[in-house]
């Protein structure tokens, strides 16, 4: 048997290219083409009175200037609401170039095309736009008040309102022995991949076809969207995601205004056109996430068992809702984590503000939900004087209760049913890893020495591998190369390695013989995209199923050639052999040749496939009715519903009594994402997720002033952590295979980020327990901790 690679920490096959500067990212493509740049609104809410381009016309190298009025037909119309939902009663999206009104700083108004980006920006600088300022709506409170409107035709600024309930939560709370109310807040953040967005388009006037490279997480859907916008037949449009420099959610949105405009301009001008987003553009014109206000009302008994949970979320969806209301839906469903809430009521209001649109960022609403649930667990523990881990364990769903139906509807429209997981085992592992039970002594010892250290814990369950489907194509070439294609894209998850591992094992070939292509509509046209920790689950299983098809066909053809029963055959290192019969072998590459009957021979191998070479049954057609030429197969994986990974994090922090600086002394992660295809890559995903979580907990927030100006639209003031801010991350795994898919895989992409704010809030509170502070808003900075201390001291003084 070929040595299995699934489960092994195989080194990534994409790395040599990326390490030597041979990657091909968007801006590396087509540097001969024209460059686009945009005039963007400096105002959060304004009516466009006039656009004067006169001064720009003199710019050397200017090729074209386009405003909304120049865009014909569907090109200028509003962009689609990608994910409609019955609760999204007032979905609104932007036009590619603003029509009459701008609704956030950074909204595109004019597109300039010039011979290079420098000159395009010269022209942008010379274009004058006159505005009539309108009052901006900034912040959830302002949106909730509804006195001022973002969109005149959206009363109360409410895009969507949704209530889900199981049992009578409010009645259960009213009759509960103990009740707590919490008001919580999570501030805005953003994906901020190191590579911004970008798109390059090339129109072939002879072939009447369009090729678009775009830094996206969903190339097949970009293709469909562009064909619709540009009114081109789908088969005249190719969309390719080249190497993508990180996505983390923001690149799932499509089509971006720039994708439509650059492609259209390439057709109009008959030349290659490229737009590469710069860093400021990314901050003010891509997308943000996270910002929510939450009210939690919980009823529980004297042992800390939840009896009723009533959660209300006010979600800031920014100026537009291109990606629907996925984020608040996930928050209100995934909030439950590993717990049985008793009766549960979740209500959210998704609100417009004059700020950049809000769409999923890694975690996609889960970090906010986890924060609400875990803050609640800590509050209950504090109220009852119980160990925080004990309160959590008492509310866990038991392994014997799997599958567990929450009676709610998840983001995929399917019932929220947990498929598997052993939460007590995960908790035991993380407590052991961090030394939970021994910590009290450490805390007291430190306090005696004038130091403040604290420990925190956070648990989450993550719905992963959301449908509807992904597909896989596997083909054995006549030189033995195994070509694999799947439609979803790659932004650093190592798909060229993990999917090759799956196919190599299923087919019985060497890993090095397998070549994987992702995100290229020329290679595979049916796909959804890479988001929601779904790629390994969906495409991993799809390529496995396709490989099994190919294996069956290979064994059948080889059986005929070797005059053996396919059931007696095995494939080892790319060679089909009769079990236990040395010498009775045929290489897969030869099977590939035999699979394609030829009339013409062009090399030695192909001679064996010509009609006169192979001994053939004269009464049978060369290709049987139920057969087709070629040793290849395509198959799809479509799960009944999501599969649910889980994990628990624990951290030890120290806070400086004088400067309020917060340092993470230890950070431990125990994670269960079912079968691991490549432990090294999974661990890398965890590390990266935790780092983004630490950023979101202690450093990163997007700060708008009352006028809707983003005050920190740069890496100078948006504090993405350096290595100096990220702790060593200690990890351990459980592997509870998913019963829902052939490989038993669960997703791992978002796991690391989900509980970090909850864990660190818990740990900081514990370190500050002598001060009696309560943390209800994250992220928290030293300055904010300083003021929390001051408030706590004052309250003491008052009481």
């Amino acid at each position, binding site marked *: 048997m070929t040595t299995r690679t699934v489960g092994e920490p195989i080194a990534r096959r994409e790395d040599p290219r990326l390490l030597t500067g041979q990657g091909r990212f968007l801006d590396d493509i087509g540097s001969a083409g024209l460059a686009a740049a945009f005039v963007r609104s400096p105002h959060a809410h304004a009516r466009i009175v006039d656009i004067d381009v006169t001064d720009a016309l003199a710019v050397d190298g200017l090729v074209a200037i386009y405003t909304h009025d120049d865009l014909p037909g569907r090109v200028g119309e509003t962009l689609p609401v990608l994910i409609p939902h019955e609760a999204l009663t007032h979905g609104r999206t932007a036009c590619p170039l603003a029509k009459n009104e701008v609704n956030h700083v950074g909204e595109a108004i004019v597109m300039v095309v010039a011979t290079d980006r420098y000159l395009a920006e010269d022209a942008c600088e010379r274009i004058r736009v006159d505005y009539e300022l309108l009052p901006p709506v900034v912040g959830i409170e302002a949106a909730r008040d509804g006195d001022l409107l973002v969109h005149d035709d959206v009363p109360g600024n409410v895009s969507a309102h949704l209530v889900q309930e199981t049992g009578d939560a409010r009645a259960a709370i009213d009759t509960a022995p103990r009740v707590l109310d919490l008001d919580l807040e999570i501030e805005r953040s953003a994906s901020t991949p190191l590579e911004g967005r970008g798109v390059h388009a090339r129109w072939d006037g002879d072939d009447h076809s369009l090729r678009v490279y775009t830094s996206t997480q969903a190339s097949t859907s970009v293709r469909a969207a562009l064909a619709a916008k540009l009114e081109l037949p789908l088969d005249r449009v190719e969309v390719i995601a080249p190497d993508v420099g990180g996505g983390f959610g923001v690149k799932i949105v499509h089509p971006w205004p720039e994708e439509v405009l650059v492609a259209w301009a390439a057709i109009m001008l008959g030349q290659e056109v490229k737009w590469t987003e710069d860093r400021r553009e990314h901050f003010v014109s891509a997308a943000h996430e996270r910002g929510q206000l939450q009210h939690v009302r919980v009823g529980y008994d004297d042992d800390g068992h939840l009896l009723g949970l009533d959660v209300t979320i006010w979600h800031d969806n920014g100026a537009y809702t291109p990606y629907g209301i996925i984020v608040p839906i996930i928050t209100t469903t995934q909030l439950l984590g590993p717990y049985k809430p008793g009766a549960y009521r979740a209500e959210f209001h998704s609100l417009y503000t004059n700020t950049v649109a809000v769409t999923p960022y890694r975690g996609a609403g889960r970090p906010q939900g986890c924060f609400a649930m875990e803050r609640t667990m800590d509050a209950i523990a504090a109220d009852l004087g119980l160990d925080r881990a004990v309160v959590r364990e008492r509310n866990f769903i038991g392994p014997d209760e799997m599958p567990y139906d929450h009676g709610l509807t998840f983001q995929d429209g399917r019932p929220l049913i947990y498929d598997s997981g052993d939460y007590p085992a995960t908790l035991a592992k993380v407590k052991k890893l961090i030394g939970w039970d021994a910590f009290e002594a450490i805390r007291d010892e430190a306090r005696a020495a004038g130091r403040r250290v604290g420990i925190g814990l956070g648990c989450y369950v993550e719905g992963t591998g959301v449908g509807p489907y992904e597909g896989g194509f596997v083909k054995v070439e006549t030189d033995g190369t195994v070509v694999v294609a799947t439609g979803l894209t790659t932004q650093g998850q190592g798909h060229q390695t993990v999917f090759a591992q799956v196919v190599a094992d299923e087919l019985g070939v060497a890993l090095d013989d397998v070549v994987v292509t992702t995100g290229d509509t020329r290679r595979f046209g049916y796909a959804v995209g890479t988001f929601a920790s779904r790629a390994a689950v969906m495409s991993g299983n799809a390529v496995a199923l396709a490989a099994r098809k190919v294996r069956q066909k290979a064994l059948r053809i080889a059986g005929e050639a070797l005059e053996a029963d396919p059931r007696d055959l095995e494939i080892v290192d790319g060679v089909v052999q009769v079990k236990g019969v040395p010498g009775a072998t045929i290489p897969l590459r030869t099977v590939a040749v035999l699979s394609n009957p030829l009339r013409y021979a062009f090399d030695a191998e192909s001679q064996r496939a010509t009609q006169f070479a192979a001994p053939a049954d004269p009464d049978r057609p060369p290709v049987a009715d139920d057969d087709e030429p070629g040793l290849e197969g395509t198959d799809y994986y479509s799960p009944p519903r999501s599969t649910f990974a889980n994990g628990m994090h624990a951290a030890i922090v120290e806070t400086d009594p004088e400067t309020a600086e917060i340092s993470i002394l230890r950070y431990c992660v125990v994670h269960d994402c079912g079968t691991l295809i490549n432990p090294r890559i999974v661990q890398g995903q965890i590390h990266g997720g935790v780092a983004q979580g630490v950023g979101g907990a202690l*450093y990163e927030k997007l700060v708008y002033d009352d006028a809707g100006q983003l005050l920190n639209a740069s890496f100078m003031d948006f504090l993405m952590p350096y290595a*100096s801010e990220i702790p060593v991350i200690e990890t351990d795994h459980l592997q509870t295979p998913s019963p829902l898919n052939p490989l038993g895989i669960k997703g791992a992409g978002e796991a690391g980020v989900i509980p970090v704010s909850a864990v660190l809030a818990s740990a900081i509170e514990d370190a500050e327990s002598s001060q009696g502070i309560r943390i209800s808003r994250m992220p928290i900075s030293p300055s904010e901790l300083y003021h929390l201390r001051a408030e706590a001291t004052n309250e003491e003084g008052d009481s």
Partner: protein
Amino acid sequence: MKPSGFAYHRPGTVADAVALLGEHGPEAKVLAGGQSLVPLLNMRLAAPAHLVDVNRIDELDVVRVASVDAGQVVRVGAAARHSRVEHDPLVHAALPLLRQALVLVAHPTIRHRGTTVGSLAHADPAGEMPAVLALLGGSVTVRSQHGQREIRAADFVTGPMTTSVRADELVTEASFPVPPGRTGSAWVEVARRAGDYAVCGVGVLIAVDDDDRIRQARAALVSMGPVPVVVDLTDAVGAAPFDQADWAAAARLVTARVEPDDDIHATAAYRRQLAGVLTARAGRGAVDHAATRAEARARR
């Protein structure tokens, strides 16, 4: 984010450089390390018609410890990189405060290119170098077609990113006087991320008598207002033996003196708290430094 066009000049001598500045005046900007200027150009927050690149003027690429009547002075030319000043062993032996502050300036890659005189002239309210110059009572030398003049540190920075250097003048050199006798110094900061501009930064310099009493103590603070704040701590810490100095009193004095502003990273109240805390820490650091230097001298 691409800069506007400009005419590029690369003079080989100071004379040529000041001639260009004289000719183009406010339309010209001097380009040395570019670590502050070029981001502004890329963002098109500045669009000078002329850039005068002084990187290849050899006479400006000097770092040396010179002897003057008053004692010693570290002279740093306008083309000298932070990293050269930071790593020069003679400079470090004479004036450890420079390295103590320089290691907190951004990251090594920035210091490879950025110049010490450049960060003086940039006069960022959070910049360490103007505060170091102020703490030491140093000066800069500026040259124009009309001649040369010295600007004392106290008269140099006039506001945020604003100095008393005229548009036709080139800062050719900065002079950091080496304080005489036994001294100790320390520089401490709180920044959001390592290498970021400080939320608060404090340098303390003490002069110690042979009987281990603090003769003089001064603090310089950054990010505490539009210009570097220098506070004389001598009376506050008292003429006690230096290991018994009252740094709490020094902290109270500084806290009362500073007038910081809010920004998105920290409130004024928090900054004021840091000013006191970090002054005390830097003070104790300076004492330790003085002690270790004494031991080192004893060993020699």
